[in-house]
């Protein structure tokens, strides 16, 4: 069936991609629940309190992106290394372990109160729970480490014993970094300030550090495949982008160290370096567009090319522009911990990481399913519709949250007679309603995306050389 694959072992990527999409649906449904709770405060209370819905929403996001990254690695590493994956069996075993552990954790969140979950999973022995994004029981965290080690062993051996392309080495560096930084989730001192300081080593050094290596490598791979541009050119771009990402992003962690008890010099360092953080994202946009304009062939998978260019633009807007908007210390003094942060978080995660996973899925799935280089034209049109629906809806979610955030800052922190939190929330409710509506459109886009996998039609022509 998998005649489209250069290496049979690439096939293990398929379940990873399917699981990623499934968990993405779950994430979005819980997002809708939370959005409604913002305006109808007692919706599903006390069965699914907001904190539980949020935990499910953010944890599913992280897990589906990890499934996406792993699927991407299993798909592209063998092709780049020009050899079969070291152990497809291990990859499949880890898939089931990760999926079952993840599912059990989500069931745990929903079935029992969080305090009970902490008790029955022995949080007392090594307390790591109850911190934003790191809510998983300690035993789940240990499971993640085991899966990550097995995954890195498998991918690492494949990379090191094969052709060592820049893409493979950068991807592996990013994945090792991801695993190493996660180890800081086990450090949870009694001192909240220290706890917060090193908590960011997981969270910031993931999304504004090593994950950008993974993003860059996947984007470079897809651009090589779809544009036929010389690998030397693409490698050079990749190096420059990840250099800019790490040079700005590492000290850029300082934009989280303004108001948590850390020394005041972080206000200068954080402002300076994080003001430069849009640069790598801007270069990614230029990179994607440039390669597509210079393309030497007309790849039949137009949807993939659209996703790749969209990633560049949306990552720059969400992570770059919306990040910059509130990153300077004097601005952040007023916006810290408001809906402005939520606005940035939504577009950055969607634009940079959700979209790159959807890009590689779009490229790889037709081959993994034995269909060909691309889906039929009708399916691609539906997929591109889903791209626009989700992307435009996300732009509106971000705009409405930004409006809510700016108003919140004004009413609660800036005007002469500041109002209490809940009084402000009532005043900005209209924007939460608009956000929820945009969320419904996003969900429709996601459903259309899934529908696109099942649309049958005539296969498009094989690759043509551009005139």
């Amino acid at each position, binding site marked *: 069936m998998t005649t489209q694959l250069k290496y049979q072992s690439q096939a293990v990527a398929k379940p990873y991609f399917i699981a990623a999409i499934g968990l993405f649906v779950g994430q979005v449904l819980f997002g809708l629940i939370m959005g409604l709770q913002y305006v109808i405060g007692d919706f599903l209370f006390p069965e699914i309190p907001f904190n539980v819905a949020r935990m499910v929403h953010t944890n599913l996001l992280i897990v589906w992106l990890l499934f996406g990254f792993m699927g991407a690695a299993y798909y592209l590493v063998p092709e780049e290394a020009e050899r079969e994956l070291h152990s497809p069996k291990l990859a499949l075993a880890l898939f089931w372990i990760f999926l079952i552990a993840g599912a059990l954790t989500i069931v745990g969140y929903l079935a029992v109160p969080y305090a009970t979950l902490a008790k029955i999973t022995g949080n007392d022995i090594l307390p790591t729970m109850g911190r934003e994004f790191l809510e998983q029981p300690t035993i789940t965290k240990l499971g993640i480490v085991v899966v990550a080690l097995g995954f890195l062993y498998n991918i690492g051996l494949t990379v090191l014993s094969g052709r060592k392309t820049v893409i493979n080495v950068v991807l592996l560096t990013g994945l090792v970094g991801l695993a190493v930084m996660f180890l800081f989730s086990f450090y949870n001192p009694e001192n909240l300030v220290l706890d917060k300081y090193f908590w960011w080593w997981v969270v910031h050094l993931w999304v504004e550090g090593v994950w950008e290596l993974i993003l860059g490598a996947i984007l470079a791979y897809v651009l090589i495949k779809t544009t036929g541009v010389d690998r030397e050119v693409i490698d050079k771009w990749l190096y420059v982008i990840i*250099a800019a990402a790490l040079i700005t992003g590492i000290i850029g962690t300082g934009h989280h160290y303004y108001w948590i008890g850390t020394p005041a010099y972080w206000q200068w360092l954080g402002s300076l370096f994080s003001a430069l953080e849009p640069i790598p994202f801007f270069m990614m946009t230029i990179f994607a567009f440039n390669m597509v304009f210079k393309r030497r062939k007309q790849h039949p998978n137009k949807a993939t090319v659209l996703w790749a260019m969209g990633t560049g633009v949306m990552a720059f807007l969400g992570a770059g522009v919306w990040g910059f908007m509130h990153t300077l210390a004097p601005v952040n003094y007023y916006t810290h*911990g408001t809906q402005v942060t939520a606005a940035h978080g939504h577009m950055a995660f969607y634009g940079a990481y959700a979209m790159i996973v959807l890009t590689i899925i779009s490229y790889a799935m037709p081959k993994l399913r034995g269909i060909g280089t691309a889906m039929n034209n009708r399916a691609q049109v539906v997929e591109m519709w889903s791209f626009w629906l989700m992307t435009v809806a996300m732009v509106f979610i971000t705009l409405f949250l930004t409006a809510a955030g700016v108003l919140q800052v004004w009413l609660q922190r800036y005007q002469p007679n500041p109002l209490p939190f809940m009084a402000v929330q009532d005043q900005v409710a209209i924007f939460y309603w608009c956000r929820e509506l945009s969320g419904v459109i996003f969900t429709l886009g996601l459903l259309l995306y899934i529908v696109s996998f099942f649309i049958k039609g005539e296969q498009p022509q094989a690759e043509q050389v551009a005139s």
Partner: protein
Amino acid sequence: MPDIFTKTMARNIYLGGSVFFVLAFIALTFDTTARLPKRDNRENITEQVALGKQVWEENNCIGCHTLLGEGAYFAPELGNVYQRFGKSKEAIKGFIKSRPVDGIPGRRSMPQFNLTEEELEAIAEFLKWTSEVNTENWPPNING
């Protein structure tokens, strides 16, 4: 990019740049941790405060609230709740204790966590301790 700028040069900027900034970040981390004792109010971390942090974590308070601006944006900032509640631990405890089990019709409501007296005292102590960390005068006002 012109041929004058080679792939090797790009790679060297990546390697050199990342090594340099990783080392710089580690040096800054040593400096920060050396300065923290004067800022983070650690001399007042009693067993009760430590227990309070655990109660905070094991009830996932961060899932709705922010603490020093970090967390969820569904419920009020708690880094300065001790001051907002008139520097009264009793007021904090009373608020947590009095949350209705079934919520408030149409409104957001904090769940009833059924904390013991010891846990209530601990969480209040933890929030008092947090409010005394030097945060460079954040939040801007009492409303958080």
